[in-house]
């Protein structure tokens, strides 16, 4: 089958040759009035034609009574070698605003501006097409003097761009699209689903010990019903916090996703995790809810149970903020929707439902608590300590986004060494108490060894958690001389055709595949090979990928078909694949120095 496809591609490439479409075949614009006062414009694109996002625009000619108020483009621009472009037929909705002097029907000359290229390697001139249209003005808003139309358009573009964060963009965009397109029930179901999926991620981990310890602290006679009620209060408070924070952020137009990814927010959250971890280790109790509880207890007779609920609610509220950065896609999607449409109610309800979904496992834990929750002391203490360690690990993982790799690795080393000590790696096993104790000690010893290796690796300048000693092995290669250097050359699987690439992609669905287009006659490719790929840190990181080199030196038909398949003009070009598909926006064209290249591949 693959061979047939390859043959087909080859045939297409042969026939296509260097023949290009004429401009009127490449771009086919049209526009029509819908509902009397809105224009839907379409740009049909010829084969392998794309349009630059920033060159696609609309203006009005010779009409002062109407102004363009808003341009909504249904398509998502894609990164094409560093330029944002539309690769498929474009659909745009243009809304107008009127001045007070506008007649009931206004004739407008709407100009569509566009410029684009053929992926086969020809760029067309900037062009425009004028449409003469009749617009009914009765229900149009008046042109506001404070906000000229240019500004309205700009705002809209800014919201659109905020969603297009680096590689994580598409998920958020899909959620925004789901919110815009679906019925209320569908939207709520989708968000509940997102919540349930999120509940399975490590984000929910810290909540388990928090909730467990709250329930356990309620006393020994806790029933399943009370356990469930407590966790329900916790989950409702969490959901409430999400909705409030989300709606506020959405209405004020702040992009929480970006807001949460700065070093202060991440550092702050990491500190909260560290604080919680140490409380799990028994260094201190989390004071705030306890003191609130006791104040409320003294206020009324029945307050001991109410106090319990208030404490749980406060913890639920705080937990929502603690796990904030983890739920970025769902949260950001709802926020962008609120920002774009001003529909805070639906956005808020969506967030609420999502949080309930997230809390589902917590409800189950709560319900089971009365029956299965172990009493404080004994192995519950051990479990709490383990959760404490997990929280510290989450803190380090979060800090890794803002700290240099070497520091992160050092933190991991310290983490493993401390864990090893706590697990009794250095304490003798009591005679007759082997079994579990021996297992824990053995794991402790392994943690110790790994911790020491990470520590040495970090000191030697390595940044790889998997190969912390790579700095030592590379230096050994240099000492051994030129033959060792040759063998240290980054090993690529060389391919010449689409079929070979497909076979490699199919064989490695779970790995990142790096495809490097190179040729003997390509000087930029040599720079990449001798400078960038030869860098020790780059090499270590590249070791995690399946490395494939498309050698197009001979420029055979098969090699040309492979190059054209990805819209490349020729070498150099580096593409990355995961699960058989190219990773969007990750493509590199031309030479990149080691530091820049390393930063790029680390993001994959």
């Amino acid at each position, binding site marked *: 089958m693959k061979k047939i496809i390859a043959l087909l591609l080859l045939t297409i490439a042969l026939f296509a040759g260097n023949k290009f479409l004429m401009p009127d075949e490449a771009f086919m614009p049209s526009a029509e009035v819908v509902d009397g006062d809105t224009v839907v414009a379409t740009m049909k694109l010829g084969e392998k034609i794309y349009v630059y996002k920033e060159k696609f625009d609309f203006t009005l000619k010779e009409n002062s009574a109407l102004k363009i108020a808003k341009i909504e483009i249904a398509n998502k621009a894609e990164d094409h070698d560093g330029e944002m472009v539309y690769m498929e037929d474009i659909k745009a909705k243009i809304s107008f605003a009127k001045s007070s002097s506008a007649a009931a029907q206004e004739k407008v000359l709407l100009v569509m501006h566009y410029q684009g290229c053929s992926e086969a390697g020809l760029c067309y001139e900037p062009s425009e097409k004028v449409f003469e249209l009749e617009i009914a003005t009765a229900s149009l808003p008046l042109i506001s003097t404070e906000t000229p139309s240019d500004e309205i358009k700009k705002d809209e573009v800014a919201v659109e761009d905020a969603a297009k964060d680096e590689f994580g963009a598409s998920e958020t965009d899909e959620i925004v699209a789901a919110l815009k397109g679906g019925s209320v029930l569908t939207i709520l179901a989708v968000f509940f689903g997102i919540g349930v999926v999120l509940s399975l991620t490590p984000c929910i981990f810290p909540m388990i010990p928090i909730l467990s310890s709250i329930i356990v602290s309620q006393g020994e006679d806790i029933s399943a019903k009370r356990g469930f009620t407590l966790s329900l209060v916790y989950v409702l408070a969490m959901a409430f916090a999400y909705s409030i924070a989300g709606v506020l952020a959405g209405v004020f137009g702040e992009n929480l996703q970006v807001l949460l990814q700065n070093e202060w927010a991440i550092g702050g959250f990491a500190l909260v995790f560290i604080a919680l971890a140490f409380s799990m280790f028994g260094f201190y109790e989390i004071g705030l809810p306890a003191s609130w509880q006791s104040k409320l207890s003294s206020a009324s007779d029945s307050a001991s149970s109410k106090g319990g609920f208030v404490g749980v609610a406060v913890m639920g509220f705080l937990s929502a903020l603690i796990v904030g950065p983890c739920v970025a896609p769902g949260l950001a999607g709802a926020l962008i929707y609120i920002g774009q449409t001003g529909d805070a109610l639906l956005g808020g309800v969506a967030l609420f439902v999502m949080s309930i979904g997230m809390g589902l496992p917590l409800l189950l834990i709560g319900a089971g608590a009365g029956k299965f929750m172990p009493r404080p002391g004994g192995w519950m203490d051990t479990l709490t300590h383990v959760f404490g360690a997990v929280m510290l690990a989450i803190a380090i993982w979060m800090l890794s986004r803002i700290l240099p790799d070497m520091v992160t690795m050092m933190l991991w080393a310290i983490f493993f060494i401390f864990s090893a000590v706590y697990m009794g790696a250095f304490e003798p096993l009591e005679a007759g108490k082997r079994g579990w104790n021996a297992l824990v000690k053995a794991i402790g010893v392994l943690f110790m060894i790994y911790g020491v290796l990470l520590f040495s690796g970090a000191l030697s300048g390595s940044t790889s958690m998997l190969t912390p000693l790579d700095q030592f092995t590379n230096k050994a290669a240099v000492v051994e001389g030129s033959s060792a250097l040759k063998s240290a050359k980054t090993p690529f699987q060389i391919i010449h055709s689409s079929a070979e690439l497909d076979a490699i992609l199919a064989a490695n669905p779970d790995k990142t595949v790096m495809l490097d287009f190179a040729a003997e006659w390509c000087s930029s490719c040599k720079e990449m090979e001798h400078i960038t790929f030869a860098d020790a840190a780059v090499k270590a990181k590249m070791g995690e990928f399946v490395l494939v080199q498309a050698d197009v030196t001979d420029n055979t038909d098969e090699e040309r078909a492979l190059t054209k398949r990805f819209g490349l003009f*020729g070498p150099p070009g580096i593409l990355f694949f995961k699960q058989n598909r190219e990773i969007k926006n990750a493509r590199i064209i031309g030479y990149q120095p080691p530091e820049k290249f390393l930063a790029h591949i680390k993001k994959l």
Partner: protein
Amino acid sequence: MRTLLLLFTFMVSLSADPKWAPGYEQAFALAKAEQKGVMVMLTQDNCKACWYMENIVFEDELLVEKIERSFVPLSLDVHDDDIHGLDYSGTPTFYFLSAEEKVIKRLDGVYNIKEMTAALLKIALPKREDDQ
């Protein structure tokens, strides 16, 4: 090793762009004086394919040497420069002209280093009238 790398980087940096002529008239004056033709590259802003030609293909020392052996390279922006009636459907478009401004060959669109080298081999300058 580091010295070798530096040397390599230095050599790569030597592989400069073609020596583009400053203008249409100067290009043909130079072509006449040096008994060469003129290679005109029609270009414009927002042209990814032109970027590829300028930054990848014309960075190749051997190719540039081949071009300059027979042609004076001239780059014209279809919007900003007088292109003297040269026709195009898009950019880049290459014209290989004799010193007397006669079209020898037109190439449309992008060509990689190998294709451009091969195309150059097929382009023969007409024998000049004043050649002996």
